[in-house]
């Protein structure tokens, strides 16, 4: 296991910039996630780290050793970087044990067998050693692929959309399992996904990618509650932007009331209270920031609703006509058009300057 550093990495195919100025550090033993819509360059980043693609500028270091720089890369087979592919890419002619043992060349027979047993035990497939990949379910194949990548004790594990071909229920269970396995092996791991729930369930660190750049590299909690820009705010979680006016450097007023907190709006002349005052901003309201309260005097009209089992996601029309979302326990079943009482519960004020 080792620290992974990307330093100003760029890569392009035939004029098209796929990754631009990509920098982040994944500390040793932690799990990182690259999150982004398809085509944002996250898979290319993974392939560069794995040694399948050259880079144009910058450098990639694993455990302090440079593995990529412009015009040179350490071949994939010499990197000790394990990869779990989207389609698993298990070897169809080898059984589960031999798949897992594929990367254990050079080890003694006994050591190889011990490691295979240890890993099959870890991924819960101890009884399946003699089976062939086509005899396994999708989830089992996934775990074999993970075990195979972990077997040679790589410095780093990479996973490309590891759960995308599994059904939703299995996905959540497996992502928790995978985190558990990775933590027990104390591996540094980088996972690429477009699914934020996976990222939240797995990652210690996550980066939202867009247009080949990392928009924000942070903990999943901060990505949700303190998004650095509109793209991150929009991509991670749900929410709505409502207009507001800055009162001073720790207060902003929106139509539902005054919010207290740090106002992270950059002003042209920062620190100047006069200037910040009356600055027009847009404030991000998450669905959990608006709480249904029947006693509240603040009313909003239910414009739309989506039943989610334990709760309803209501789209509310505020008095000014602006829209906001609210997550309400599902025993509060209100009809569309009905006016309901709401109350603000904002812990993290996120505001962007009006464009």
């Amino acid at each position, binding site marked *: 296991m080792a620290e992974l550093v990307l330093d100003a990495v760029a890569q392009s195919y035939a004029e098209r910039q796929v990754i631009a100025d990509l920098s982040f550090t994944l500390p040793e033993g932690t799990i990182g996630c690259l999150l982004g819509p398809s085509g944002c360059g996250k898979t290319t980043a993974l392939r560069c780290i*794995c*040694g*399948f693609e*050259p880079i144009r500028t910058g450098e990639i270091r694993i455990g302090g*050793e*440079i593995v990529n720089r412009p*015009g*040179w*890369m*350490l*071949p*994939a*087979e*010499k*990197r*000790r*970087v*394990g*990869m779990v*592919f*989207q*389609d698993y*890419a*298990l*070897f*169809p*002619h080898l059984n589960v044990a031999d798949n897992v043992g*594929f*990367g254990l*060349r050079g080890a003694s027979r006994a050591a190889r067998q011990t490691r295979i047993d240890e890993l099959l035990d870890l991924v819960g497939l101890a009884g399946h050693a003699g089976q062939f990949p086509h005899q396994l379910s999708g989830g089992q194949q996934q775990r074999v692929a993970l075990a*195979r*990548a972990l*077997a*040679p004790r790589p410095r780093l594990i990479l996973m490309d959309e590891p759960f995308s071909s599994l059904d939703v229920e299995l996905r959540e269970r497996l992502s928790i399992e995978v985190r558990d396995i990775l933590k027990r092996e104390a591996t540094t791991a980088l996972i690429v996904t477009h699914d934020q729930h996976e990222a939240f369930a797995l990652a210690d660190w996550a980066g939202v990618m867009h247009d080949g750049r990392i928009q924000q590299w942070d903990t999943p909690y901060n990505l949700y509650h303190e998004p650095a820009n509109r793209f991150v705010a929009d991509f991670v979680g749900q929410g709505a932007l409502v207009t507001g006016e800055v009162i001073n450097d720790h207060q902003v007023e929106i139509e539902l009331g005054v919010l207290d907190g740090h106002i992270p709006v950059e002003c042209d002349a920062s620190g100047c209270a006069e200037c910040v005052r009356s600055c027009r901003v847009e404030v991000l309201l998450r669905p959990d920031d608006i709480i249904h309260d029947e006693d509240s005097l603040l009313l909003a009209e239910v414009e739309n609703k989506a039943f989610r089992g334990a709760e309803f996601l209501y789209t509310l029309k505020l008095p000014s006509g602006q829209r906001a979302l609210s997550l309400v326990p599902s025993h509060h079943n209100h009809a569309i058009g009905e006016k309901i009482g709401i109350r603000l519960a904002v812990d993290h004020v996120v505001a962007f300057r009006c464009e």
Partner: protein
Amino acid sequence: MPSAGVLPEARPRYSGWMLFALAVAALVLVPVVVTVSSFADVEGDILAHLTEFVLPELVGNTLWLVIGVAIGVSVLGVSLAWLAAMCDFPGRRVFEWALLLPMALPAYVTAFVAIGLLDFTGPLQTWLREDWGLTSLPEIRSRGGVILVMSLALYPYVYLIAKNAFSTQGAIALEAAQSLGLSRTQGFFRVALPMARPWIAAGLMLALMETLGDFGTMAIFNYDTFTTAIYKAWYSLFSLAAAAQLASILILFVLVAVVFEQRSRTRMRYGAVGRSAASRRIRLSRALAGLALLYAGMVLGAAFIIPVIQLALWTRDVVANDLDARYWAFARHSVLLAGIGALMVVTVALLLVYAGRQRPGSAMVWTQRLATLGYAFPGTVLAVGLFIPVAWLDNWLIDIGHTGFGFEGSELLKGTLLVMLLAYLVRFLAVGFGPIDSGLHRITRNIDEAARSLGSGTPGLLTRVHLPLLRTSLLTGATLAFVDILKEMPITLMTRPFGWDTLAVRVFEMTSEGEWERAALPSLAIVMAGIIPVILLTWRGDHSHG
């Protein structure tokens, strides 16, 4: 700075892989260039003789043959494919694969059996004449006879590919047509048949390439086409130039077929629809089912069962005398040549497939296509077109040998297996390439990358992943090439070094003397080997359905 790295920016423009693919493609082009350039060196008398007496008959014969066989194989192939793929009748499960069995019989075997049975002196006519006083049975040694025999021998090409087309798209198309108010017959002619047209055309073109390239049948029937004329120019006129000129005209015919075939293949790709129709077969009425059984049975009987029985009967008569040391020598030569040839084919095919993997791109795809086009070339054309350049090379080397090293001989390469093996390679490369290419396509790039990320370099990738996964494909390719070379007649006949007589050569020699019985023993051996690819074909077909 670590030293063991690659420089991705500094990849050479041309690579060893691309050069290799180009070299194989060039080998295919050599016979074309050589035969066409033979017009540069015109021998006046011979050319005049050719254009005045030979060519008109050859062109006429060839056109009639092509038209007749096209109709014959289309009618037989499409009707049987429809019955086997879409209808239910007694014995359908057996017929479905048994109707492919005629592929095991080279057309020249069907030909001499047909003549032996149906000729004036044959058992059928003798019986009709003596017991019934009938004498007016149509002559088998005729244009009609050749067309009949070729159609019976080659219909499986259309049958196989049309059956696949019908069973993947027939039922859905037919149901759609019926829901729009068409009767079943209307549905067949207006929907199912037009939909399957690219498939039928592709199969038809393969059958016609075989027809244009056939030498043995034409020789047995004494029906002069380009292949026999090339052979005669080669042996009787001893004119390489005349042979080459005739070959270049034959190439024109073949190229037309190639263009049509390649176009149909492109359309097949667009027209492909999934889903099997197995559960929704048309239930035929009792009478119709009986007719279907009778029809399929008659075709199978005429194209396979009767010929094989006749071969077995003849063999029984001569086996005591003919199964001698000479026979075993023929068999040994056949197996040896087919073995060496198959090994060459599979090796070159594997490298060509690998080249595509290493250097993907449209340039490579076109090069591969060109390199595997040799299957379309008649053996006689390849024999002439490869002998001539090798002879040039030989003379050049001998000149150098004479002046520089005091070499005394007059042959260096000509007396060797070189020309023959090169011709086999060109003609049968596609047979090996097909299964290996599709085999490697099933191994995804992710599998390669998985192996590399687990520490395998290129040698490890080849020995630990690719070769084990490709074993079946390699074996299939080798078997198909082996059997094709075993059956091959004109290349072997024209380019074999002295003393390299094979089973097919023996068949030619015996049939050219009208000794059908004595041709039966080597033929039976060829047929038995020929059944293996049919089994492979049905086995693979079953797999692709499951």
